[in-house]
């Protein structure tokens, strides 16, 4: 049995079925991300004064990722346009570029996550806080038994609030060096993972969900670029519609990042 309205527009809706389907799906996605943005707003306005982080994320990497996604949105559109003018060679080139740009985006995001996961904040028994990237742990390091040492590349502050605004003149002036701390001097130790504070929790949730969308979109685009492109020979119009629908999803993912970048990296 042939699936109806994969190429022709339905008389009642005026569009083919997959297009209406993707728009309905994107509408639900708006509410999904909207709920998480709403949670971000509530967490931010509910934070104790001076305890909401600023400058924790690498703006340069965020900017590069913004431009990569914008470029990938453009190559997606051009891939569809190439299908429309029946230029399959250019479609392959443009969609190949989209895949490469998407993988680069994910690579940079992974690097950022790794950077957060090796970044530690250590509450010391003398009331001070050590903060920096993990250099090494001694082989016998055991926080529960209070034996061994840990070395961070960072600095020590008197008040935890000093770690919140990394754009402040004090934070910029801080001298970072290798600090070795004995386990016996450690009261509490944790990395900048999702459970570090509400900022990292919402940061990992929002960007993680977004990265999953990028991954899913990349897999679909890869399928249409590779094995799925066989349809071009049998039904090019239907294939073109598939590229349009996957492109709409990809543009939505770009749209989400357009708001994620300023909200998380710039404000």
């Amino acid at each position: 049995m042939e699936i109806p309205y994969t190429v022709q527009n339905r008389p009642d809706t005026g569009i083919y079925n997959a297009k209406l389907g993707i728009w309905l799906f994107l509408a639900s996605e708006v509410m999904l991300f909207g709920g998480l943005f709403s949670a971000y707003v509530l967490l931010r306005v509910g934070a104790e004064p001076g305890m909401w982080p600023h400058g924790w994320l690498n703006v340069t990497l965020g900017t590069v990722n913004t431009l990569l996604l914008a470029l990938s949105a453009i190559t997606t559109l051009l891939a569809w346009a190439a299908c429309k003018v029946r230029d399959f060679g250019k479609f392959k080139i443009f969609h190949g570029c989209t895949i490469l740009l998407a993988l680069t985006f994910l690579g940079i995001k992974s690097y950022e996550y790794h950077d957060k996961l090796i970044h530690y904040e250590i509450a010391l028994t003398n009331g001070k806080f050590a903060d920096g990237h993990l250099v090494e742990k001694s082989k016998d390091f055991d926080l529960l038994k209070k034996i061994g040492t840990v070395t961070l590349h960072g600095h020590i502050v008197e008040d935890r609030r000093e770690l919140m605004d990394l754009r402040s003149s004090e934070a910029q002036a801080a001298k970072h060096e290798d600090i070795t701390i004995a386990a016996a001097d450690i009261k509490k130790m944790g990395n900048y993972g999702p459970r570090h504070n509400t900022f990292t929790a919402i940061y990992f949730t929002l960007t993680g969900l977004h990265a999953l969308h990028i991954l899913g979109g990349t897999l679909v685009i890869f399928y249409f670029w590779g094995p799925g492109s066989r349809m071009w020979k049998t039904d090019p119009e239907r294939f073109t519609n598939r590229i349009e629908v996957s492109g709409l999803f990809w543009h939505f993912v770009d749209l989400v990042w357009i708001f994620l970048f300023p909200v998380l990296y710039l404000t």
Partner: protein
Amino acid sequence: MSESEKPVSLQSYIRLCVVVFIVVVCTTSAMIATSFSHVGDGWTLKVAIILGIAVVNAFLVAGYLMHLLSEKKLIYTVLAFTVFFFIGLMGLTVWATNGFPPGTVSH
């Protein structure tokens, strides 16, 4: 006829994409410049300006790359419902920030 159903010229799309990308670069630079500038006393004005620029950026992507400037009525209807519920969601959020129950410890 929606934009995606009109006859396509690859060259015209490449020109459009170049313009869109240049504007995206400019708006992204403007957001970063605003973020590191000394506009206003705190973050409120900065956030408003940055999100305003982000909306312009989003309009470009939705309007030109997603062809929303010339789509079918049904898609506009779906989006009108989406916008209505999204505004409702954000309205509830803003309302909640000003309406903590009595006895809530505020910082």
